[in-house]
């Protein structure tokens, strides 16, 4: 029911207006009522205040009148006394001038003043003296019997009401100030006697020359009467003016006095109020009024009657009372409560009707508005329902109403578009369905054909599978046979391998033992040769010198023997390795020749060198080891040749152009004692020397040829011996696949050779400076020691840091270090190693990199030991 748009709009507008109306009724109205009440209240108090000020001003004028009347009377008295005083003064002047005697003058003055009358003959002048304690009367026109007597009558003592004699008081004033006024009470003469005491005022003046006090008095009771008559005139006027004042409809002002008499009142002026009670409280009303005047903040409420309802004391009244003290008057304003609240009530009603009107108007506007908004939407909804009922393809979108607000119109347009596109979509869908049905038929046909083909193929496949299976079983049988024979072979290989391993191990153990023990022997031997050399310098006895020479010779022999043993054992233990470098054979031969020109000293020997001109100038050889071999062979030749010649020759045998490698031979030919045919096979074994020749004659360890043979073999070569006994022998070394040095290495080798003496050359041929890179650094700096320390301090730590994950950058850095070290010290093996590692790194061949890195410790160890060996 509340779902309709129209209903909702109505509800919203209605509830807004209703809420506003309720709000006004309960909040605003209450506030306004209070404001109206307050303003009425203020109005009443304002009137009261005005009345109070009115009474006050009336009182002021009354007081002024009273005072001015009294002043006029006093002036009159003064004038008369002054006149009498002048008269007395004339009489005294006459006496002074001597026209009269003193008593005559007095008599004349008294007689004249006695005649003075004023105010309808009621007023007169009297004279008394200044006699003490009580003055005597000198002249009094109305009571001449008292003249000459003392004024001690008791009534003179009461006149002032002070217990003091009237005339004594007058005499005191005259004596002190010469003149002055005295108020007192005195009987008044009227027609037919005297009245009771009346207020009287007298003026006295002293005539000094005679000590007379002249005085006159006047009754002032008429002034009081005058004031009273004026007072009642004021009350009359107030009655008249208050009657015109209305508070609200029938509220009024009234005045009563402290004697509880109503003075001013619209209806009951002059009444005694003392008996009136407040029906509300039961107390005397006037007492409540008086109490209310003491507390001006409190509004007095009481029940009273009303004009038109006289005697019905049930109308609530409110009264405001103020007290006018100088006259003891209470001025009050009273008003009927219902009359004060009347305007507020009227206002409330008016607001209520206005709200009702607004509610009705609002509802009408809402109804129109709701209709205006909701109707186009309802139409649209109906159109959408129609589309749904008839289907989008049947519906004509021009029937969709486009009306109402802009948004509704837009909605209508969108709905139209939707219907249009839906219709199009349905049409496309139908077409697609038809096309699908067609292709489905085609598909079914071709899939049937495919199915039949598959069946055919399956059959062919089965036949093939069968043939394959047969083949497989045959293969399996043959494989099994092969496996058994293979395993037999394997086990045999294992057995043989084990045997070989055992042999090698035993051999190695022997070599190691020899290496160790040789070293241990060398140390004490050094002491023996060293101390014997020392001793020979201090001993002079020829016999002892002879003994010492024998000791030294034996020591030297032993040292050579031990060195040879060390070499041999090193070779056999696999601790000796070959380090090829660029070598110039011509230079090497020349060097050897020089050495032997020293050792062959004294023998008639011709030493000649013959080098094939075609032999490349620089070859990659292990110069140290080659030199060792050649020295050994040449040494033997010199040793066993007494005369004739020794020839050192080199011949190129083969040149492999593709790999730039050659085979060549070195021959050492002598004309010495030669070797017998049967001895030739044994001479390369350890500790063999040609029989028939005593060791003493030729010396040597018998190890030289054995070592030479091993070294040549390590250099990928062979050694053989030819010749015959007594004629001489020829030792022939054939070295195969010797690499040619690159031009760079060639230059390096030549430079290194030219710069040094032959005796120092063995190491420097390998450790020459890389001049093309470091021209300034000359050779002496690059000693093997420095290379050693570089290897130990730079290369090894760097290598250690490579352990763990492979960091490509670090590997590259390591390569660079090796290459630069290899270049600087001309160590080819380092360069080669770096180049190899570089290829693997560039290919990220992790396996090869790992393998290559594992080889490094061995390489470096060999390098270090070779360097140390040379150094030692």
């Amino acid at each position, binding site marked *: 029911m509340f779902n309709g748009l129209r209903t909702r709009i109505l509800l919203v507008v209605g509830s807004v207006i209703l809420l506003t109306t309720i709000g006004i009724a309960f909040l605003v109205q209450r506030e306004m009522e209070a404001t109206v009440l307050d303003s009425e209240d203020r109005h009443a108090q304002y009137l009261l205040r005005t009345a109070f000020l009115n009474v006050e001003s009336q009182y002021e004028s009354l007081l002024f009148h009273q005072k001015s009347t009294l002043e006029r009377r006093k002036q009159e008295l003064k004038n008369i006394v002054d006149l009498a005083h002048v008269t007395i003064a004339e009489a005294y002047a006459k006496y002074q001038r001597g026209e009269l005697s003193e008593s005559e003058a007095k008599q004349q003055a008294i007689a004249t003043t006695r005649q003075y009358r004023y105010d309808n003959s009621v007023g007169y002048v009297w004279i008394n003296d200044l006699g003490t304690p009580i003055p005597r009367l000198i002249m009094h026109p109305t009571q001449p019997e008292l003249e000459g007597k003392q004024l001690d009558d008791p009534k003179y003592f009461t006149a002032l009401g002070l217990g003091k004699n009237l005339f004594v008081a007058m005499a005191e004033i005259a004596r002190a100030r010469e003149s002055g006024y005295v108020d007192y009470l005195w009987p008044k003469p009227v027609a037919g006697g005297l009245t009771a005491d009346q207020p009287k005022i007298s003026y006295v003046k002293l005539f000094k020359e005679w000590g007379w006090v002249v005085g006159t008095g006047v009754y002032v009771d008429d002034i009081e009467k005058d004031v009273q008559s004026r007072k009642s005139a004021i009350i009359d006027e107030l009655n008249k003016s208050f009657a015109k004042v209305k508070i609200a409809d029938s509220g009024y002002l009234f005045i009563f006095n402290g004697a509880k008499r109503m003075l001013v009142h619209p209806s009951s002026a002059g009444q005694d109020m003392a008996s009136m009670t407040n029906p509300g409280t039961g107390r005397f009303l006037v007492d409540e009024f008086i109490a209310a005047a003491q507390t001006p903040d409190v509004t007095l409420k009481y029940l009273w009657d009303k004009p038109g309802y006289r005697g019905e004391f049930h109308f609530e009244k409110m009264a405001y009372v103020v007290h006018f003290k100088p006259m003891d008057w209470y001025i009050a304003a009273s008003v009927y409560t219902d009359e004060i609240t009347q305007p507020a009530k009227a206002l409330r009603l008016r607001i209520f009707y206005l709200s009702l009107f607004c509610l009705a108007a609002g509802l009408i506007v809402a109804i129109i508005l709701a209709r205006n908004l909701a109707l186009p939407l309802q139409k649209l909804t109906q159109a959408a329902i129609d589309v749904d009922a008839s289907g989008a393809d049947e519906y004509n979108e021009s029937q969709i109403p486009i009306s109402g607000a802009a948004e509704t119109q837009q909605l209508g347009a969108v709905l139209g578009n939707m219907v249009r596109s839906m219709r199009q979509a349905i049409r496309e869908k139908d077409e697609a369905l038809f096309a699908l049905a067609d292709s489905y038929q085609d598909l079914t046909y071709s899939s049937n054909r495919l199915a039949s083909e598959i069946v055919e193929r399956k059959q062919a496949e089965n036949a093939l599978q069968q043939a394959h299976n047969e083949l497989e079983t045959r293969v399996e049988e043959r494989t099994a046979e092969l496996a058994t024979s293979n395993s037999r072979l394997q086990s045999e290989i294992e057995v043989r391998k084990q045997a070989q391993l055992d042999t090698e191990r035993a051999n190695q153990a022997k070599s190691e033992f020899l290496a160790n023990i040789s070293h241990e022997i060398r140390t004490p031997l050094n002491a023996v040769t060293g101390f014997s050399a020392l001793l020979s310098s201090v001993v002079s006895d020829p016999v002892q010198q002879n003994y010492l020479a024998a000791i030294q010779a034996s020591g030297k022999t032993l040292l050579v023997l031990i060195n040879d043993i060390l070499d041999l054992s090193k070779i056999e233990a696999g601790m000796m390795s070959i380090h090829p470098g660029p070598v110039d054979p011509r230079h090497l031969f020349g060097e050897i020749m020089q050495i032997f020109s020293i050792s062959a000293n004294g023998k008639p020997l011709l030493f000649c060198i013959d080098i094939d001109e075609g032999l490349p100038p620089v070859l990659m050889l292990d110069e140290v080891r080659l030199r060792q071999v050649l020295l050994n062979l040449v040494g033997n030749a010199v040793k066993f040749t007494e005369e004739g010649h020794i020839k050192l020759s080199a011949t190129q045998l083969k040149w492999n152009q593709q790999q730039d490698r050659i085979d060549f031979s070195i021959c050492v030919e002598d004309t010495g004692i030669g070797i017998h045919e049967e001895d030739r096979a044994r001479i390369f074994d350890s500790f063999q020397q040609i029989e028939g020749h005593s060791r003493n004659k030729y010396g040597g360890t018998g190890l030289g040829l054995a070592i030479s043979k091993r070294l040549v073999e390590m250099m990928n070569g062979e050694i053989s011996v030819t010749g015959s006994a007594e004629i001489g022998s020829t030792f022939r070394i054939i070295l195969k696949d010797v690499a040619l040095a690159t031009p760079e290495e060639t230059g390096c080798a030549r430079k290194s050779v030219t710069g040094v003496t032959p005796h120092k050359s063995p190491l420097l041929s390998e450790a020459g400076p890389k001049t093309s890179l470091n021209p300034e650094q000359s050779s002496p700096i690059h000693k093997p020691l420095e290379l050693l320390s570089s290897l130990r301090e730079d290369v090894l730590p760097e290598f250690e840091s490579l352990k763990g*994950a492979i*960091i490509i950058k670090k590997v590259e850095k390591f390569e660079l270090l090796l290459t630069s070290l290899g270049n600087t010290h001309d160590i080819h093996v380092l360069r080669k190693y770096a180049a190899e590692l570089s290829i693997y790194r560039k290919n990220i061949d992790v396996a090869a990199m790992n393998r290559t890195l594992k080889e490094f410790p061995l390489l470096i160890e060999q390098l270090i030991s070779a360097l140390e060996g040379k150094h030692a």
Partner: protein
Amino acid sequence: MHKKHTPLILIVDDNPTNLQVLGKLLTEKGYDLSIAQSGQEALSFVNTNQPDLVLLDIMMPEMDGYEVCRRLKRDAATRHIPIIFLTAKIDADEVIKGFELGAADYVTKPFNAAELLARINVHIELNTLRGIIPVCSQCKNIRDDDGLWNQIEEYIESHSKALFSHSLCPPCMDELYGDQQWYREKKKET
């Protein structure tokens, strides 16, 4: 101009062939490379080096890729390094497990080179200019990993793809040229 930082990638795989293929691919693209052949090796590498990205194989003997990832993410010093799993597994559970462990991405083997490179590039760029950058509170220069102080634009240009074009903001212009006659006239015109 400051040298551009070359990203370092750690590949962890027990298979040398995989390493070779991946390694060639990445070095050709100019990345720095480190190679670990086991989880243990990878962890000890990360202890002393800060790779910008880890390519992590899951199936490895002894310590598998999940465990390596778990340990890397547990350590505050290595938590920020993005990890891409290389896996032959295409099981959704396994992939989810990888992500739950904090992996940035995963690539299935056999991988498509272009796709792998794109993913690596994304994660390395995501990681640029992250973390705490030490900056001088006075001149706003930035300290790089080598301990050198760089002007802020140099640093950002070398650590990100952003470029700078220099000009002056109005307050600085006022400060620089405020006492120049031509500047005041020009300012008055505009």
